[in-house]
Structure formats: C-alpha cells, structure tokens
C-alpha cells in the first residue's frame, strides 16, 4: 500500500516532469518562431512593396498578403532608369576584384604557409596583412579619394576594382593559408619527387584539393565587393561608374522617394547575396571571424 502510494507519487512527478519538458520544448519553438519572424518580416515587406502598385503601397492598414502584384517597378528601375547600368557595374567590379584578389592572395598564402622564412617573417607578415584589414574604411576613404583624384581615376570602374582587390586581399590570404595548412606537405613532396616543380605541384596537386575552400573564399570576396558602400560612394558619383548600392542610396536620400523603384533595386541587390550565402554556410564562421561580409 505504502509502496503503491509512492509509486503513484513518482509517476505523477514524472508526468509533471514530462509536461514541463513538453512545455519547455513548446516555449523553445515559440521563441525561435518569433526570432525567425522578426528576421524575415521586414525583408518580406520590402519584397511586397517592390511588387505593389502605389495604391497598395500606401494602403492603411498595411496589406501584407492581399494585393495585385505588378512588375512595373522593376521595369521602371532597370529599364527606364539607370539601375540596369549600376547592376552591370556592380557585377563587373565584383568579379574582377575577386579574380585579382584570389590570384594574388592565394599565391601569397601558399608562400606564407609552406615556407619558413627568415626571422619568423612568415608569421609576422601574416599578422601585418591581417592588421591592414582592421582599418576603418573611412580612414582610408579620405586619402584614397585624394589619390584617385590625383591619378584621374575618380568615377571609373578601375578605381573600384583596384580598391576592392586590396580590400579583399588580407581576407583571401588568411582563408587560403588556413586551407593550405590543413593539407599534408607530403602531397606536394611526392609530386616534386616525381619531377614537378614547386609551382607545378601547386597548380596540379594542391589547388585541386583546396577547390572547395577556394570557391568559398571567392564567394566571400564577391559578397564583400557587392555589399561595399562607403568607398564606392566616395569614389564614384556618375551613372556610368556607380555601383548598385550607391545608386540605391542616391534614390533614397532624394527629396521624393520612389518606394517601388527603391524596393525593386533592393530586392535585386539582395538576391545574389542570399544565394551566395547559402552556398558558403559551411565556411561562414571561419569567414566571418576574418572579417568577411563586411568591408
């Protein structure tokens, strides 16, 4: 009898425990759902504005789901206005600066990870390279503007390509240095014993093995160049040379704001980034701790 009572009490306790853990699980889901909703709703709102006619944009209360979608703003932004050109500039600058930074940075990373230099120079140089990444962009923006003005490179795509290459270099060096270090040296040594030169071994043996890392690094560079705003704002002010972010900012701060055009441009600026980000999720933490994404 006594034992039975105990057992019942025990069962009740377990029941309460299970109920509590079920509650905890529900609470967890509710909190997470709230967080996701907070993260996504504002972005969703911009997407709807880009698809709404003016009547729907300014409707009260706000129309979250029910509206007649239209692509007029996209046509307006990218065909009637110059956003198509800004887009092309952004793509060109991002691709070229990524190629340059990746080429130079990978070679340097290989040099820094595979050779022990005099006076610990390999480590010191690596740290120095990383430290150049830590300058706030506004600090270099002022002298870079004056330098580019002296070189007559203001309002040119080349100025952006040059500056973004330098912006991405430290990051490439550190990412690739990490990937090279993870590879055993024996691989290249075997290739070199077979008569390959050091650079031959790099191209034929090492690079194919770090391709995933190389691709991830490239994607990070593309993101940084694509998102960069301050230097582009300072260096380019003409329709023929400005990037998408500068173009958008110009429209935002004008007296009359075209909500639809601005949102359409925003959506187009956002889509490649989201695709890229999904592609590099695995490397995101490593990339971010070396300053990826933000310039």
């Amino acid at each position: 009898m006594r034992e039975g009572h105990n057992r019942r009490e025990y069962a009740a306790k377990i029941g309460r425990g299970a109920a509590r853990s079920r509650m905890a699980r529900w609470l967890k889901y509710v909190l997470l759902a709230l967080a996701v909703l907070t993260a996504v709703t504002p972005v969703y709102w911009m997407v709807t504005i880009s698809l709404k006619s003016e009547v729907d944009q300014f409707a009260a209360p706000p129309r979250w789901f029910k509206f007649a979608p239209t692509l007029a703003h996209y046509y307006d932004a990218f065909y009637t206005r110059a956003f198509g050109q800004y887009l092309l500039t952004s793509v060109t600058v991002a691709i070229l600066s990524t190629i340059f930074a990746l080429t130079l940075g990978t070679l340097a990373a290989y040099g820094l990870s595979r050779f022990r230099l005099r006076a610990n120079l390999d480590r010191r140089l690596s740290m120095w390279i990383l430290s150049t990444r830590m300058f706030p962009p506004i600090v270099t923006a002022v002298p870079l503007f004056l330098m580019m003005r002296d070189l007559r490179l203001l309002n040119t795509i080349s100025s952006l390509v040059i500056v973004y290459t330098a912006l991405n270099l430290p990051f490439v060096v550190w990412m690739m240095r990490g990937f090279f270090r993870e590879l055993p040296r024996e691989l290249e040594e075997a290739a070199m014993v077979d008569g390959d030169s050091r650079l031959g071994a790099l191209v034929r043996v090492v690079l194919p093995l770090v391709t995933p890392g190389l691709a991830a690094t490239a994607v990070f560079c593309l993101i940084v160049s694509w998102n960069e705003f301050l230097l582009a704002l300072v260096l380019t002010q003409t329709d023929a040379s400005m990037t998408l972010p500068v173009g958008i900012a110009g429209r935002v701060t004008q007296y009359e704001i075209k909500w639809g055009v601005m949102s359409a441009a925003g959506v187009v600026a956002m889509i490649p980034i989201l695709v890229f980000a999904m592609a590099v999720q695995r490397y995101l933490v490593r990339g971010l701790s070396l300053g990826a994404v933000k310039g």
Partner: protein
Amino acid sequence: MIQQTSPRRQKGEQSEAPPSRRRDTSLPYLLIAPTIAVLVGLSIYPLIYAVKISLQTGSGEAARWSLANFARLATDSFFLEALAHTFIYAAGALTFEFLLGLGLAVLLDRPLRGRTLFRSALLIPMMLPPVVVGVVWRLMLNPDFGAINGTLRGAGIATDSLTWTASPSLALASVIAVDIWQWTPFMFLVLLAGLQAIPQEPYEAAVIDGSSAWQTFRHVTLPLLKPAILIALLLRTMDLLRVFDQIFILTEGGPGFSTETVSLYIYRTAFRFSDFGYAAAMSFVLLVLTNIVSVGYIRLLQKQETA
C-alpha cells in the same frame, strides 16, 4: 628543394642541385611580394598620406605644417557629440546583440527538428547589403506609410509621437535597433559554433555532480565559451565603432545631429565641406580607438595559433 624547414635536407640539396635551391628560397618572397605591394600601395600609403594632410592647413601652394587640426578636435563640440553617439551606439547595440545572440545560440545548440532551417532563416539579416538594410527599415519605420506604424494604428494605438528615425529623441534608439536586427545573427552564429565545439565530457561530469541547468551553464558552458565570446565581441566592437552605411541611408546623421557618428561626421567634413585635413585628423582618433580593440583581437588569434 624539397623542404625549407629541414636543414639536413637543405644541406643534401646543396651538393646535388644548388641552382634549384637558390630559386626555391626566393620563391616564397616572389609569391608574397605582389600582395605586399598592393597592400603597401592601398593601405599603408593612404595612411601616410592621411598623416601628411592632417598635419597641414591650407592646400596646394598655401599648405603649411601645423597641429591646428588636432587642436581643433578637443574644442569641436560636434566632434565630441559624434564621439558620444558612437559610444552609445556601440554599447547599446553590443549589449543587446550579445544577450540575444547568446540566447538564440543556446536555444539551437541541442538537436531540434528544423534546426538547419531556423539557423539559415536567422542568418538572413546579416548577409544583406547594408544599403538594402537601410531601404528595408526606411519602409518599416516611415511614420506615415511604414509597416510598423500602420500595424500599430490598425491595433488602435496612436502613433503621432512615434516618428522613429524622424524624431530627435527616438532616432538614435531606432538606428541602434536596426543594428541589433542586422547583427544579432552574427553573435548567434559565432556563439553557436563555440557552443558546438565544447566537448561532451564536462557536461556529463556536471550531471553526475548533480548541478542544475543554470549552474552547468554558469560554471561549465560560459568558461568554455569564453574564447568564442571574446572573438565575437571584439569583431562586433570594431565594426560598431566605424558604423556608417545603415545610418547614412536611414537618417544621414539627422534629424539635426542626433544620429551623427564619427564616421558620418568625417564623411561630411571631407566630402561636403572639403576639409580633408581635419577629416584625416578625426579619422586618426577613430583609428586609435579601433586599434585598441583590434590589438586585443590579434593577440587572441596569435594565442590560438600557437596553442
């Protein structure tokens, strides 16, 4: 030729193939040189250039060496106010981003149905171009047509005083809130990675000792998470001190001067008033501030590399 680190082999090489060894020892320098050249040209030279113009007043032929730009810093009430805004912005955003990010990381640390999906969705704000974040929040916060005030009015709440970025008293808080929205995911991601790198054993020991969940968190999780916490805080602090993009789009430093940070004030000084020397002088203050933080960060990285 084979491996530079081993002196024994190098000696062997010397007798067998001296020319190739010679080429190989210069190889690393050849590989590194272009990168160094680019960084010297586009990071170091601009800094020297900035030092020079900050120490000059007047321009061209009339330029004179002087410390006037630096003397002006201490008496420029706009600069001091911008500095104060920057600190408030950094402290406010950092606190909330850290607490919220840690909370989310703990929620998603254990296996959970839909975890990958939650994680990916939570990362979206962080990946967006800062300019797009500015656009998104202008649409949300517009006093008349924004989604937030529209929704509040729909719920019967008066929004006349809630003009967010257009209100001198709410503008700074609004731009901080936008920063928290965008960058909490960063804290979350770095801290989650830190949590997942903690081995299982200390937790098992804590269970055997009969510690409560809070005790375990306080005495096992937090100490082991410390390196990840430090990295996340240092990186965020560096970014927060230099904040420019979102504020430029959202308020351009206004209304009045209420959201002007150091970066924005430097931009205005250089590119609106063409006072490049004074802008350069101010940017050194910012550089010193971020350097203090970045030295801490680099020390931490060095420690991890040698460990």
